[in-house]
């Protein structure tokens, strides 16, 4: 009977990444791949330039919720950079970082922000200009499932915010909106593929940075971006996972990494990757000028994640009621 635990330990040792003080694992969500590739390279350089031993930075990407669950279940991430504050809250509930983590860094711990826009087919054949057009007959809307995709929760809440601002019954509006959704992908990239490669739907609800990326990769002759009158200010937050910090050297590295995200250099990179960052002092003016001024509602305006999450996306919540069935 003593054999089994030994086997298990061996297996776990083989699977678990070996982390030294100068290693850092950043567990992030899907669309940040390109951004963090660039940030990691630049940070590693500046870290060595300051006279430290070379740091080995790794980033893992996936759905925000799945990534948070992996950290809760023991993935050895020193830093998390996820799509939703509520996902990091869950990690905090598991005791891996203090509950007030969001106050530890500027701007609610969100070094960059984004919003939700529409991507439509070239020439905008269905004449879609605002949220109200999405519930018309014959308009097909592509969005991932808010239950499985962090990004889709922002889509849903942006629609909700527009309905509230325009004196429409928000519950009825999101119901009608999702009645026009022919395919519910599980993640943001999947929805983009369905819309762009498979040719399904008339409008894709997308992160602003994903919409720009899709337009750039697939050609502006095929798609164009429509900015609705009201949208949400999406604040993807970052945090250090205290429980996974081995020693002071690693704490210093993780702290420096997160603070680096707020430096003018890193902020310029965020702008270049189509995020709305805060500090444009070193950013390419073209990258900054790209973003039209929008009426952006914050999560706090809508009531905060602690209230929104269970009310809308919890088991049996408002989103489930859309599909409650007969």
């Amino acid at each position, binding site marked *: 009977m003593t054999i089994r635990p030994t086997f*298990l330990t061996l297996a776990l040792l083989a699977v678990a990444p070996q982390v030294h003080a100068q290693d850092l694992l950043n567990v992030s969500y899907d669309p940040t791949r390109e951004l963090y590739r660039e940030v990691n390279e630049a940070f590693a350089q500046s870290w060595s330039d300051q006279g430290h031993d070379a740091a080995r930075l790794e980033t893992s990407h996936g759905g925000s919720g799945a990534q948070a669950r992996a950290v809760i279940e023991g993935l050895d991430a020193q830093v998390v950079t996820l799509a939703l504050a509520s996902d990091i809250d869950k990690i905090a509930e598991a005791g891996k970082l203090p509950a007030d983590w969001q106050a530890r860094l500027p701007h609610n711990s969100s070094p960059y922000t984004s919003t939700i826009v529409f991507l439509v087919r070239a020439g905008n054949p269905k004449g879609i200009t605002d949220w109200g057009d999405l519930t018309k007959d014959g308009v097909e809307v592509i969005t991932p499932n808010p239950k499985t995709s962090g990004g889709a929760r922002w889509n849903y809440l942006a629609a909700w915010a527009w309905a509230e601002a325009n004196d429409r019954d928000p519950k009825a509006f999101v119901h009608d909106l999702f009645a026009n959704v022919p*395919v519910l992908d*599980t993640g943001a990239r*999947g929805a983009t593929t369905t819309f762009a490669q498979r*040719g*399904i739907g008339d409008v894709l609800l997308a992160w602003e940075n994903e919409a720009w990326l899709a337009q750039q990769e697939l050609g502006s002759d095929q798609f164009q971006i429509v900015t609705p009158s009201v949208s949400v200010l999406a604040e993807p937050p970052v945090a250090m996972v205290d429980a996974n910090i081995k020693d002071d050297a690693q704490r210093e590295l993780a702290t420096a990494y997160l603070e680096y995200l707020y430096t003018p250099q890193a902020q310029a990179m965020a702008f270049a990757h189509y995020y709305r960052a805060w500090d444009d002092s070193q950013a390419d003016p073209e990258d900054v000028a790209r973003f039209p001024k929008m009426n952006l509602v914050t999560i706090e305006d809508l009531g905060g994640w602690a209230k929104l999450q269970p009310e809308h996306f919890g*088991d049996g919540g408002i989103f489930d009621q859309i599909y*409650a069935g007969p």
Partner: protein
Amino acid sequence: MTRRIWIARSPMPGRGLSAGITLSMLSAVVLLPIGALIWQGAQFGPSGLWDVINRPRVWAALWLSFRLAFLAAAFNLVFGTLLAWVLVRYRFAGRRLVDAAVDLPFALPTAVAGIALTTLYAPNGRLGGLAAQIGWKIAYTQWGIFLALVFVGLPFVTRTVQPVIEEIDTEVEEASATLGASRIHTIRRVILPMLTPAALTGFALSMARGVGEYGSVIFIAGNIPLKTEIAPLLIVIQLEEYNYDAAGAIGLAMLAISFVTLLAINLVQIWSRRRIGHV
């Protein structure tokens, strides 16, 4: 104290070691995870379990998953057996290639299969475009799910039936013919009874695989609740909510239905074996 013998003694050496390794491995990879699932459900309590399962959306997903897995397995039962027959009995150019290709659904990551099938059968895909002309939507409907399940389940039937066909001497068929049986009669009364137990095993494996299939289906299904939402996706949705209890409840329901289904298939198998009296 009487010492109970768990595993009967055998003259072959290494009984203790091999049995120990087998049981440890079986525990680590099969029994413990399933035990954990049942334990999770047991802690949740029967009324809690029932509350999660007894919802229109969950019933719709379970019905969809099991119905389409059954239909896909039935399809594979017929065409997988036919394929095995062709591969064993006929010699044609590229036979080895086709034979190797049968295993591809095992080897290919299911996500790749799902994306490839979707590309082909989406309304703007090669085959999906043709189907769209006659008003037949394949991807993002139940047809798409059926297609994905046929794909992942096909090798199970072919690979279980193939060795049995190889064992059948053509003399048996010749004997049947010389005794005056028609070809149809030979197939029905001589060939099929010999193939039935293996084919049923393949059917059961194919169906079991289809019920739990996630990776390929989510790309082609459309995932609309009550219409094309499979049960494994509901489990993932509950996990996204950190709702381990509800995820476990749906998992348990699937486990229970699968168990009953596999048991039924086994009983049919035993019955068919008894009827033909050998194998």
